């Protein structure tokens, strides 16, 4: 071959390969003619237009291949729409079952993203943050924050802390955190206005500094931009507003302890009675949440073992008792997630949701696939005619798949809308807790991507098997006028039977899970609290937080309880610092073995401690 002919031969080879990609019907009708024509004109084109002409020739076939496929696809869609509108009953039932399945799957995914996998809002690099699973004492925190090899920065906070905030002539209880000045810098949260806490807040200035949340600023302060530097009465003490947190930021643990107010520990016990009794110096007072930002390259496990070693050293230094258990001292959880979870526990939650969602979706798919199979059997004649007209099996399968994709996409859109609505309803739900906990459940783009993936997969799942089976048809009886079409029958092992069985099995399993869940809820609802909550009322007052002295508060509380006792209809009343089952940061008590000679005392048990009035047990009617 001469050099001048080489581009021509190469172009022809490439052209033939590309023309091979035409749809089957087009190729069999015109493929030969196109190739013949191209072979005839390729030489003259090369001579007249050179390489540009050859490129134009190749571009022509490349573009045309795409156009022919798109045309076919469009034809399939129109044909599919016609077929679906012809059987509205089938279409409606398929749409509804799939839309429900997709809705549930997307809801589960949104819930997972909304609670378990969602990062704390406004926090920088949330994946670097780790937190201690249980609160620690401040002296321990002080030691942990010196672990500069592990943490680039650390913070501690106390939560939930109620603050009585007075503004505009009224006092409102607002929940917040008492924090180390490093709180905002460690989280990487920048204030929207004013400044965050810094070194100057380590010590108490004339007035304690306070930061407020965007929500509080908008709600209580009317969004006034001039509030920075103004005074806010917090627990009866004037405090200066130094900054406003960014929008959507409600503290380091918004799912458990929402914060609208932050004050540094240096504010002192006048503002925060929680800090009384030298709380920052007591190593037995485990009431500080600890969060650290891991240095790059440091793993959670490394941090955990380092903290463990440090904690054990401290235990030894503070006490000569041997610790009661040998478990890890400071189990770490994700610090940058909405819900603090241990790393190894996350898959448990996510997989539970995924399995449930997948099961529901599979049942919906099996249902629709079964209906498709029944419908395909009805359509055998139509399929046989198309096959006999020269349509390839692939072409028919593609047509049937297009129909199932149409149903799946419509169901996907419907399911997504339904899910958006449900999530909106769920986010409106307020839990009956004293602290305003919000679950910000939105359908996010992850969920949208998930729904789309699920939709496409669903379309393939319920469409492919019926399509393949429907095209395995014996043409002769199918084409006979009025002829009965014999399906291939394997009565025991047919696809429809298998689908039915799996549908039943899946439904049964879901029913069982649902039954167990409702049993669990019922058990929790009827749990024996150990006391009789009937006709029991709780009034929460906090004179100290309102700025009264503790002596004054004490006599007030005494008088209050006496007056209440005398009220008609009240059989008994008592004061208590805390209600049963509330886990606050109060130091518990530890029981040790007797201090016998020559023996190291061992901690054998521990308990929580509540200070209560003398009528406490009569009032709550404790059951033994």
């Amino acid at each position, binding site marked *: 071959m001469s050099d001048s002919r080489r581009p021509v031969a190469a172009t022809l080879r490439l052209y033939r390969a590309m*023309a091979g990609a035409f749809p089957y019907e*087009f190729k069999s*009708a*015109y493929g*030969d*003619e*196109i190739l*013949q*024509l*191209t072979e*005839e*004109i390729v030489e003259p084109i090369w001579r007249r237009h050179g390489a540009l002409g050859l490129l*134009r*020739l190749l571009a*022509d*076939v490349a*573009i*045309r*291949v795409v*156009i*022919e496929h798109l045309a076919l696809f469009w034809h399939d869609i129109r044909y599919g729409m*016609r077929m679906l509108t*012809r059987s509205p009953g089938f279409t409606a039932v398929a749409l509804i079952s799939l839309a429900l399945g997709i809705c549930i799957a997307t809801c589960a995914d949104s819930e997972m993203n909304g609670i378990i996998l969602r990062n704390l809002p406004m926090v920088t690099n949330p994946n670097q943050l780790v937190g201690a699973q249980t609160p620690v004492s401040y002296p321990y925190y002080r030691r942990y924050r010196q672990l500069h090899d592990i943490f680039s920065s650390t913070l501690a906070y106390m939560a939930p802390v109620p603050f009585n905030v007075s503004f505009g002539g009224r006092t409102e209880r607002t929940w917040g955190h008492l924090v180390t000045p490093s709180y905002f810098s460690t989280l990487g949260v920048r204030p929207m206005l004013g400044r965050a806490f810094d070194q100057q807040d380590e010590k108490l200035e004339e007035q304690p500094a306070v930061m407020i949340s965007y929500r509080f600023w908008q709600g209580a302060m009317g969004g006034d931009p001039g509030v920075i530097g103004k005074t806010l009465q917090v627990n009866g003490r004037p405090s200066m507003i130094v900054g406003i947190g960014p929008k959507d930021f409600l503290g380091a643990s918004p799912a458990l302890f929402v914060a609208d107010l932050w004050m540094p520990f240096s504010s002192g016990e006048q503002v925060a009675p929680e800090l009384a009794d030298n709380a920052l110096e007591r190593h037995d007072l485990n009431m500080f949440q600890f969060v650290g930002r891991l240095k790059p390259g440091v793993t959670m496990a490394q941090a955990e073992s380092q903290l463990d070693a440090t904690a054990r050293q401290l235990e030894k230094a503070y006490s000569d008792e041997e610790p009661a258990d040998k478990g890890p001292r400071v189990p770490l959880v994700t610090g940058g997630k909405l819900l603090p979870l241990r790393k190894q526990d996350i898959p448990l939650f996510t997989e539970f949701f995924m399995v449930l969602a997948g099961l529901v979706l599979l049942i919906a798919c099996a249902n629709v696939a079964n209906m498709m199979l029944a419908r395909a059997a009805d359509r055998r004649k139509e399929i046989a005619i198309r096959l006999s007209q020269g349509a390839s099996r692939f072409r028919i399968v593609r047509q049937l798949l297009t129909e199932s994709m149409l149903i799946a996409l419509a169901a996907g859109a419907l399911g997504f809308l339904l899910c958006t609505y449900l999530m909106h309803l769920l986010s409106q739900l307020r839990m009956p807790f004293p602290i305003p906990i919000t679950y910000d459940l939105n359908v996010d783009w992850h969920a949208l991507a998930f729904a789309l993936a699920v939709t496409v997969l669903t379309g393939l799942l319920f469409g492919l098997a019926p399509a393949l089976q429907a095209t395995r048809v014996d043409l002769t009886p199918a084409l006979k006028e009025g002829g009965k079409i014999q399906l291939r029958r394997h009565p025991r092992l047919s696809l429809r039977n298998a689908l039915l069985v799996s549908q039943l099995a899946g439904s049964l399993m879901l029913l069982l899970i649902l039954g167990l869940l409702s049993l669990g809820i019922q058990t929790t609802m009827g749990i024996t609290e150990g006391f009789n909550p009937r006709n029991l009322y709780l009034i929460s007052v906090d004179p100290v937080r309102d700025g009264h002295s503790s002596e004054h508060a004490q006599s007030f509380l005494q008088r209050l309880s006496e007056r209440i006792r005398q009220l008609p209809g009240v059989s008994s009343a008592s004061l208590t610092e805390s209600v049963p089952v509330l886990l606050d940061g109060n130091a518990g008590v530890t029981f040790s073995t007797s201090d016998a000679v020559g023996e190291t005392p061992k901690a054998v048990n521990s308990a929580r401690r509540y200070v209560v009035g003398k009528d406490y047990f009569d009032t709550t009617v404790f059951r033994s």
Partner: protein
Amino acid sequence: MPPNKPPTPESFLPLRPHWFHVLLSLANQDQHGYGIMQEVLERTGGKVHLWPATLYGSLKRLLDEELIAESAQRPSPEVDDARRRYYRLTRLGRRVLAAESERLEDLVRVIYAKRGIPTRKAES
């Protein structure tokens, strides 16, 4: 499904340029693909090149719309290439071609009138 009404020639207007050229080249005689391509090329002085894949794509659509049909007439055996198919205009195709030609003529008249220039006929 209700039976489709037969399409009117006007429903095809304005005709796609490629379709117009193909119909035009079949106006006087039946042609095969190569012939249509050459005819269009010569008639337009090389300005319109119907490349093979595009040409057969148009032929397929014209066949689907029944504007052209395969011709049963073949040339004499010594010049006939058995692999080639010949195409002819259908009655509908001829009416569509006429309607499109008329539309284009009207258009040209409007253009000349707007510009205030006489038509070529008037020039000569």
